[in-house]
């Protein structure tokens, strides 16, 4: 979220009108405004269930922003894990114990000053980290995923019809044709990925590649940790 805002703040005066992605930025402003409002309401409301529901709006806003910058995998994970599981569990717990309707006077509000201080500190640290890390990076919205391709021969039979049409290939269907790199690049992106042998590098692929090679140890460690927590929960629950 902040990254996109920073890009606007840093480079806003350098962008020409054609480069400035208006629909995306309007959408960002609406989502961010809604998130800020809900975040403030979440900590100031005196009804616990309302607080959890405002949290849903904040988390849905985060997911929407992820989808807006093209990371739909992270966005969907955000929805599945946070809204579909964690907040549901919160609501479940609240409703089983103290689901009072209306304002609840016993909700603590004395430690608000401490909360404000912690929040400001976190904001400063994260803002510094983001400005430092993304100083001159521009976010490119909705760019097609890159496709890797080695020039190779194909049987015309194996090629999808639109590819054959687009390249103007003629001949008996059992013939072999060579599709070289310039020909491949002349295809529109939605056809490129359908040529046999072409490999699409999307977000999903990059995430999968880095999780199962570079971060495999961390990934396995987290899996074991979660399994331990699961078994622990069962043991604690069955203790009687």
């Amino acid at each position, binding site marked *: 979220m902040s990254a996109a805002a920073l890009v606007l703040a840093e480079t806003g005066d350098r962008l020409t009108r054609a480069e400035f992605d208006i629909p995306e930025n309007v959408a960002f402003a609406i989502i961010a405004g809604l998130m800020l409002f809900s975040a403030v309401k979440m900590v100031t409301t005196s009804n616990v269930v309302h607080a959890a529901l405002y949290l849903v709006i904040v988390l849905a806003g985060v997911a929407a922003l992820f989808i807006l910058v093209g990371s739909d995998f992270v966005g969907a994970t955000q929805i599945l894990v946070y809204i579909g599981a964690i907040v*549901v569990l919160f609501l479940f717990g609240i409703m089983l114990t103290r689901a009072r309707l209306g304002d609840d006077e016993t909700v603590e509000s004395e430690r608000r000053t401490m909360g404000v201080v912690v929040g400001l500190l976190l904001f400063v640290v994260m803002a510094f980290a983001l400005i430092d890390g993304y100083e001159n990076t521009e976010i490119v919205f909705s760019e097609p995923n890159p496709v890797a391709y080695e020039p190779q021969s194909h049987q015309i039979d194996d090629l999808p019809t639109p590819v054959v049409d687009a390249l103007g290939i003629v001949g008996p269907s059992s013939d072999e044709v060579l599709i070289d790199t310039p020909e491949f690049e002349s295809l529109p992106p939605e056809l490129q990925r359908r040529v046999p042998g072409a490999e699409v590098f999307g977000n*999903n692929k990059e995430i999968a590649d880095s999780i199962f090679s570079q971060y495999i140890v961390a990934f396995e460690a987290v899996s074991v940790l979660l399994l331990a927590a699961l078994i622990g929960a069962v043991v604690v629950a069955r203790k009687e």
Partner: protein
Amino acid sequence: MTVLSIELAYWQQTTLRVLGGAVAVLLPAGTLVYIYLFKLMSFVQSRLGPMEAGPAGSLQLVAEVGKAFQKEDIFPRKADRIVFAAAPFVVLMSTFLLVLVVPFGPDAWFVDLDTGVFFALAVSSVSVIGILMAGWASANKYSLLGGLRAAGQLIAYELPLVLAVMGVVIQAGTLNMQDIVLAQAEGEIFGWGGIGNPFILTQFLGFAIFLVAMQAELTQPPFDMPVAESELVSGYMTEYSGIRFLLFFIGEFATAGVFSMVAATLFLGGWWVPGIDPDSNLFNVIGPIVMFAKVMLVTLLIFWFRFTYPRFREDQLQRLAWKVLIPLSLLNIVITGVLKVAF
């Protein structure tokens, strides 16, 4: 986007997509209610069903909707008004988000997300929030119990639902719904590509688990403990009346239709039928019709089970999910993975 060689502006595309989404959600819902809920259910129970409104009762649905519109929109005095009023919309929103990723033809889709199936499963879990909101805000014990039961059930059956889809994703090698359809259309069974390779053949276990989990996610009988009328009146819907009850009602059957679209896409080849080149423009026209036919087939199974089996008990329901469906779907993933690597 170009339709009939007219280049459409952004707002025109958006309007078209919104209209298309509304049709894709509401048309199957209405058809399901009339053909299956009114007529097939009557047939199963040896009665005629609605016969008065229109020929063979075909306008009964219009009458029902008209009745719901006329009724007073009642709020219980102690209810939390805003949450109570918003809850049906949250449930319906999850349905409309779900239809977004379903493809209806080679170029006929709403959004072509790379994470299609994953996104669909993620947004389908949002409806739990709406149900919990409705149960809590009604200020009624039965509603709250119904809401909690529904949440427990939906969480339990989300797991087999996700795990059953994993087999298809491993076999197709993609999460994108459009590419899953193409993988089935271009697939071959032992070198024979006559009918492609609809994943119901190789992933039959996955399909069966998906169907059972779907039945539970839709809280259709025999999984309707959250609205069990003999114990909980109508569960989280008890206090709702008029237009808001209608929204819950539409939500129930629209979600059945949209979930069946996802099932048809994953297991039955989606908009594709054997014999026609999947890249042919023809599919942009007949694709939605093919999809509709497949949806009616899947929902027939759902409603058949609904009319046939008595309701589960709460503990039987949880046992089925955790001790039968989840181990089976894990087994399915292991087998699919091994076969994928072996072949």
